[in-house]
């Protein structure tokens, strides 16, 4: 028990008094609305007391940082040992353009890199594909061959800086390029660190960057997990992502539940398919959450995530290594909370969301730029976003105490509530036969569609508020400069691709791709074949076309 009986009795008595006082003042100071709820529509009470966490056991449920169940963080020293990694997601235009932005960020005090690829790269198409028309370099950097990748990494110390790559269906191809680039620079695979997102389940659920059907998609992921465990020990081979689930309209509880259930699915697959012991790979699984605008809900979500995962890994998978119990995660502030209207307000939103991520104990953070709701961010807007993190880290003092909100009646109670609601979802998906089965049924997709629709109706009705959109919308129609992409990027990239193809040994590429195809069919790990292929200048699309041919293509069922 967290409290003595005497404290609980006193609490009950004082709460009754308080309730009487609330009733008495109802005539003069009635509450502004009948129901208060989080942005995800969890109802919250006006006051929390010891009784709300009467069943919480200090040692079992809360404890200290660095100890099971890690509610309060994985590291015993918290941010005193090391701040979170300042990791700004960046990519635009050509590899050279992006490399310039990266150097600007590193010079500005950023401590890790994070790559945004353009849509053709994300979907496994080359820049000269008819499907790529109009998209090249728009939402990120265009990468077709290892030559582009080497330009991207120009002057980047790959043995010192860790790099995250938001890449999913073509993850094997881009990771192969990273490995090949490291070798080119004389850095061994054991010396590189970083993350590939490589989380296909959330693509089917939410982000819709898919290529092959779920089953073979998971197989390719298990190949990377196995390859990482054996050859690239400092690499996070999956970033199990709730971010996109949330952006698609999920509630915080749905984000928490679907993400962790995706994680369970991956762990099961690697054990079953690859025969690895859980402790051989689980320490390299990482997570990625959204930091939305509802301050306490987000903090509680992140705390609950750590506790649920620790229990899942220890109890469900019998992991022995404490590092397998850790839920390490990156956070990005919520793009969907930003507004095109009165865009400077986005700086304030992002700062509050970033603070929530820090109080939730994130290991790594991207802060959105104020103009990202309109276009790719400008240098100036990115700098403000990075400075926001640095102000939180070095001026506000919040990094000095680990998990400072622990023990708050409200925070612990909401953490418990989110854990219990997420666990219900996880059990439900277990009963359906797992996440792939649930996706086949459209279950998570429709749960999210319901939440997104409900939220939009609430905004339109004014029940939920977005400042500048449905309240205080008057005035303030000040514009901000919008970054325009150079229209020449596409032509330049296509020319680079053609030139790389002209220079290469086409027969070697053909042979590499045939070998890759054979590996796809026999179940051999595809990674060594991808690395060989990219070294011979096989393109992202050529590798992905092998997957499409062998495994087939997934079509969006278009559920709404």
């Amino acid at each position: 028990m967290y409290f003595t009986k005497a404290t609980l009795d006193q609490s009950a008595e004082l709460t009754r008094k308080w309730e009487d006082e609330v009733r008495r003042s109802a005539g003069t100071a009635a509450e502004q609305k009948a129901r208060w709820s989080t942005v995800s529509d969890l109802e919250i009470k006006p006051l929390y007391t010891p009784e709300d966490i009467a069943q919480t056991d200090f040692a079992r449920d809360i404890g200290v940082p660095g100890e099971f169940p890690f509610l309060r963080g994985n590291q015993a020293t918290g941010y005193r040992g090391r701040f979170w990694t300042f990791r700004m997601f960046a990519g635009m235009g050509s590899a050279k353009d992006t490399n310039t932005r990266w150097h600007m960020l590193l010079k500005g005090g950023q401590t890790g890199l994070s790559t945004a690829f353009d849509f053709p790269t994300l979907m496994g198409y080359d820049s000269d594909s008819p499907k790529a028309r109009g998209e090249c370099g728009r939402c990120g950097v265009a990468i077709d061959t290892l030559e582009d990748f080497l330009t991207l990494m120009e002057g980047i110390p790959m043995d010192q800086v860790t790099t995250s790559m938001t890449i999913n269906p073509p993850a094997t191809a881009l990771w192969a390029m990273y490995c090949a680039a490291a070798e080119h620079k004389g850095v061994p695979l054991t010396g590189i660190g970083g993350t590939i997102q490589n989380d296909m389940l959330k693509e089917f659920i939410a982000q819709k960057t898919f290529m092959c059907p779920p089953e073979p998609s998971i197989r390719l992921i298990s190949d990377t997990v196995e390859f990482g465990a054996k050859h690239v020990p400092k690499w996070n081979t999956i970033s199990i992502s709730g971010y996109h689930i949330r952006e698609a309209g999920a509630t915080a509880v749905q984000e928490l539940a679907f993400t962790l259930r995706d994680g369970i699915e991956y762990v099961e697959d690697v054990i079953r398919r690859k025969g690895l012991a859980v402790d051989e790979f689980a320490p390299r699984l990482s997570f990625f959450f959204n930091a939305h605008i509802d301050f306490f809900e987000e903090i509680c979500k992140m705390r609950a995530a750590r506790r649920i995962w620790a229990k899942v890994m220890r109890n469900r998978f019998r992991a022995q290594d404490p590092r397998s119990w850790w839920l390490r995660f990156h956070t990005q502030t919520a793009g969907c909370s930003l507004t095109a209207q009165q865009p400077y307000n986005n700086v304030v939103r992002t700062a509050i969301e970033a603070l929530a991520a820090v109080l939730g104990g994130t290991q790594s953070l991207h802060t959105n730029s104020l103009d990202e709701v309109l276009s790719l961010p400008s240098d100036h807007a990115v700098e403000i976003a990075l400075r926001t993190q640095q102000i939180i880290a070095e001026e506000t003092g919040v990094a000095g105490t680990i998990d400072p909100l622990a023990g708050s009646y409200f925070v612990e109670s909401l953490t418990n509530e989110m854990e219990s609601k997420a666990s219900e979802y996880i059990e439900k998906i277990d009963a359906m036969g797992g996440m792939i089965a649930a996706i086949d049924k459209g279950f998570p997709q429709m749960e999210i569609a319901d939440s997104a629709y409900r939220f939009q109706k609430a905004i339109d009705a004014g029940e939920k508020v977005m400042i500048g959109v449905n309240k205080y919308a008057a005035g303030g129609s000040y514009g901000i400069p919008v970054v325009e992409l150079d229209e020449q990027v596409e032509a330049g990239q296509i020319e680079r691709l053609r030139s790389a193809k002209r220079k290469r040994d086409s027969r070697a590429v053909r042979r590499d791709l045939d070998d890759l195809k054979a590996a796809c069919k026999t179940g051999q790990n595809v990674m060594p074949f991808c690395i060989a292929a990219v070294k011979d200048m096989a393109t992202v699309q050529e590798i992905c076309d092998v997957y499409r041919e062998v495994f087939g293509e997934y079509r969006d069922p278009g559920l709404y």
Partner: protein
Amino acid sequence: MTDRKIRIMVAKPGLDGHDRGARVLARAFRDAGFEVIYTGCHQSPEQIAAAAIQEDIDVVGLSCLSGAHRYLFPRIVELLKEQGADDITVIGGGIIPEQDFPLLYEAGIKAIFTPGAKLDAIVDWIRTNIVPRN
């Protein structure tokens, strides 16, 4: 005449997978009593134009958040025109900077809705401007 429902196709052209807005709108149109076809993500302009003609659509609502609207939206209007289907109204939305509006209007996009537009306002625009064809 009036008993024919407005037939709307919500379409996601290009490689962009940001479909939250498109799906919310598809549901709002259904609730408004329209007949709704949602294409799902990753449709080429050719696929969208062909489907709009084949399904006898009154209005196509395009959603794009990747910045590729500058190419994709005009291309779809052009394909419809080429196939003699320029009586199909095309509207669009997504992350569309204001400076791109003239280019899109000139290309034949009849209305553009950006973040912050209310569902009701979009439904009303369609009710006011679209007469179901027979």
